[in-house]
């Protein structure tokens, strides 16, 4: 086969270029460690997501020192959780799946880019150096509301980040003379123990208790007020732990009212 001299040179040049590209990409993968989303994760059926240990309650979880996992569910037309709160300067591994159709998981202008395919779990690890907010969008057409599908990633300063959760409750009504019990639960999602103070207020009474919540566990605290001291009527209560606050109210009813209502019901 006759090939022109210049053409031979051109072919050789083209091959060098092609091999150069392949070497560059390979260097990016092996040398710089920019790995691709792969098939490491177990598959999960979309209709079993609610019962799943991880995706049943989409959340951020600490999995090691300076390592967090974020379990994200994409569905028409939201992301869960939203916002996704993560600490700066920590390794975050996103596990993304879809509840219904194929969605995208994309933080514009960054390397955070994955497909959310029902049945599959995409895994990608990133680290944010700076605190700040990043828009998260679905970048695969997923139906009529596709253009409204966005979420938010909030990167918090490392020392301000926690995975503390506070919940608190009292009965709605308490008969005068009985005790008003305020049950608060503090959950610590991080691995290190959490030492903190729980402050509570029921009506005009204040309470304080120091607690230590072990890593990945919860602690219950109960505050008790005498309803007779509070008096009949509606009383607001507040529980604060660090920056978290729960509020509610409890009604103290007189004996007669309670009896009357009880009578009506029966």
């Amino acid at each position, binding site marked *: 086969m006759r090939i022109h001299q210049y053409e031979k040179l051109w072919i050789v040049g083209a091959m060098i270029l092609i091999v150069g590209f392949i070497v560059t990409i390979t260097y990016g993968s092996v040398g710089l460690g920019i790995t691709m989303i792969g098939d490491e994760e177990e598959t999960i059926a979309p209709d079993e997501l609610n019962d799943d240990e991880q995706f049943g309650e989409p959340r951020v979880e600490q999995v090691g020192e300076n390592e967090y996992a974020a379990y994200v569910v994409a*569905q028409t037309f939201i992301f869960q959780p939203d916002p996704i709160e993560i600490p700066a300067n920590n390794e975050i591994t996103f596990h*993304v799946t879809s509840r219904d159709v194929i969605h995208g998981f994309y933080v514009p202008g960054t390397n955070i880019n994955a497909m959310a395919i029902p049945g599959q779990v995409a895994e990608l690890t990133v680290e944010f150096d700076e605190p700040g907010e990043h828009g998260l969008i679905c970048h695969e057409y997923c139906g009529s509301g596709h253009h409204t599908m966005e979420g938010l990633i909030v990167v918090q300063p490392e020392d301000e980040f926690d995975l503390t959760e506070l919940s608190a409750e009292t009965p709605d009504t308490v008969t005068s003379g009985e005790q008003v019990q305020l049950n608060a639960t503090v959950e610590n999602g991080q691995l290190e123990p959490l030492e903190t103070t729980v402050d509570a207020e029921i009506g005009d009474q204040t309470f304080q208790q120091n607690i230590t919540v072990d890593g990945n566990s919860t602690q219950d605290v109960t505050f008790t007020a005498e309803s007779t001291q509070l008096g009949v009527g509606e009383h607001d209560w507040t529980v604060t732990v660090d920056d978290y606050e729960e509020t509610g109210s409890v009604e103290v009813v007189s004996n007669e009212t309670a009896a009357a209502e009880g009578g009506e019901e029966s």
Partner: protein
Amino acid sequence: MTALFVDEYPAEARLVKAAFLSSFIAFGIGALFGIIQALHRTDIFRFIDSIKYYTVLTGHGVFLVIAFTIFFLVGLYQWAVTDSLERGSVDIRFTWLWYGLMAIGSLLAGISILAGFLDQPPMVLGSELRANVLFTFYAPLEANPLYYIGLALFLVGTWLAGIDWFRTWWAWRDENPGKRIPLRTFMVLTTMIMFFLGSIGVIVSILVFILPWSLEITESLNPLLTRTLFWFFGHMIVYFWLLPAYLLWYSVLPKLSGGRLFSDPLARVVFILFVLLSTPVGIHHQYMDPGIAEGFKFIAMTNTMFLLLPSFLTAFTVVASMEHGARQRGGEGRFNWLRALPWRNPAFTGMALAGLIFAFGGFTGIVNAGMNINYLVHNALWIPGHIHAQVGTATALTLMAGSYWLVPQLTGNRLVGRQVALFQVVLWFVGIVFMTNSMFRAGLVGVPRRTAEPQYQGFDYDVGVGSMGELNAQLALGGTLLFISAMLFLVLMLLTVFNNDSEPIVDGTLPPALSGPEDSPQVLDNLRLWFGIAFALVVLAYALPLAGIAAQSGLFGQDIQPFPVSSEAVIYFQFGLEYVGAFVT
């Protein structure tokens, strides 16, 4: 001057004209949808509901990259086979059969798409007639079965077209024992081998999984599997769009330049490389997909990079042929020969400018193919920028330019408005640069593709240079220029068809290459061999990933419900309720 194609092969010319007519109708609708999108997504002029944007988007994709390109391809290839073998179809009824299947298929798919504009779509085959699923129709988004049936008929028609050209070639071979396959027929046959092999993916996806599922014969499917089968076909189809342009660049452009093709053997090598490499690369569209191991993505990446080779070879041959032509016309000097080219000829200028854009677009393709760089651009507006440079210009502009040369030979009429035609191709060139430049820049700052409203509530794009407003204005300006150019083209074609009492000034003869087929080894013409190797490469690239996907979550997936785009609001609402219910309990 030799006899016109229409006089020599009137029956085949009629078919080519029919195919071009279908192609141009699709082109007109697609172009109209294009400008609607350009104005809508940039928020410059929104006159449709954003939900209907996705009807427009689906139509734009299907009408342009399925109907416009492939109808043109079958017309052009029918011309190429007939003209280069100097014989008509074995049975012209068979030829019309495949055309008819393609026409019916595209009508069905087209109707089911356009029904998306109705507020009360009719019920067809047990569900609302709608197909807002885009041309990629990723399940579990679900269109009306009619859409899939239409696509399937269209594909079957295209298969039969390939078989028809093979039959014509076999008949010719018996009449001309021992002769080399004429170059244009060689290009047609190799393109079709590539198509047979690559379209297996989408045919299986539609016929085995998606269509039965949309008809409720099967209950579930595996979304990653159907998606992978689509991309098995999806990159090959890119070359199916491109190779008609290559055929014109190799056979017609050198002649228009005033010379002849530089090398026939290398043209054959280029087409063989496409047969071998264009299918086992599809996974490069799925770099961001879970469920496909990194190793398979790496293999797809290397294959893709080698696929640059035939395009590099083409760049050389085309430029060398043009230079040869220019020198025949008296051009001199290292670069001054460029001035001697027939720039007044819209057919020449259109193809040359298309080639220029193709070279530029090729480099953006390298970015897409680089698997880790792909993180930056996957599903960003950069990707449609690339597509519009490649199929939207390298192919579309070449086909339009080719029409200025070919349509007079098919109709026997003189081309109307040669100067307007020149302006038209140049306008396309300018328009595409304005539009794609904006798309590339917007894509790099993360503006996504395929969305009616790329502006979001929670954040703004970090546009490094200029502003979002400027990018939008530039995109819309480019889109408008393209639309005007497309309409000019269609008007000129229409006027030419009715320009009855005229004689075309076009010479349909194509001179043989400087270095003819006798310079190439006979093995290049051994189509069985190339098919065999291509098949083996596809098996190597796809057997394991497909088996892996099927093994992970089953051939038919894990109880994946359909999400018909037809009654979306209702379904999503029900679904939301169920979900909230499950969450509360």
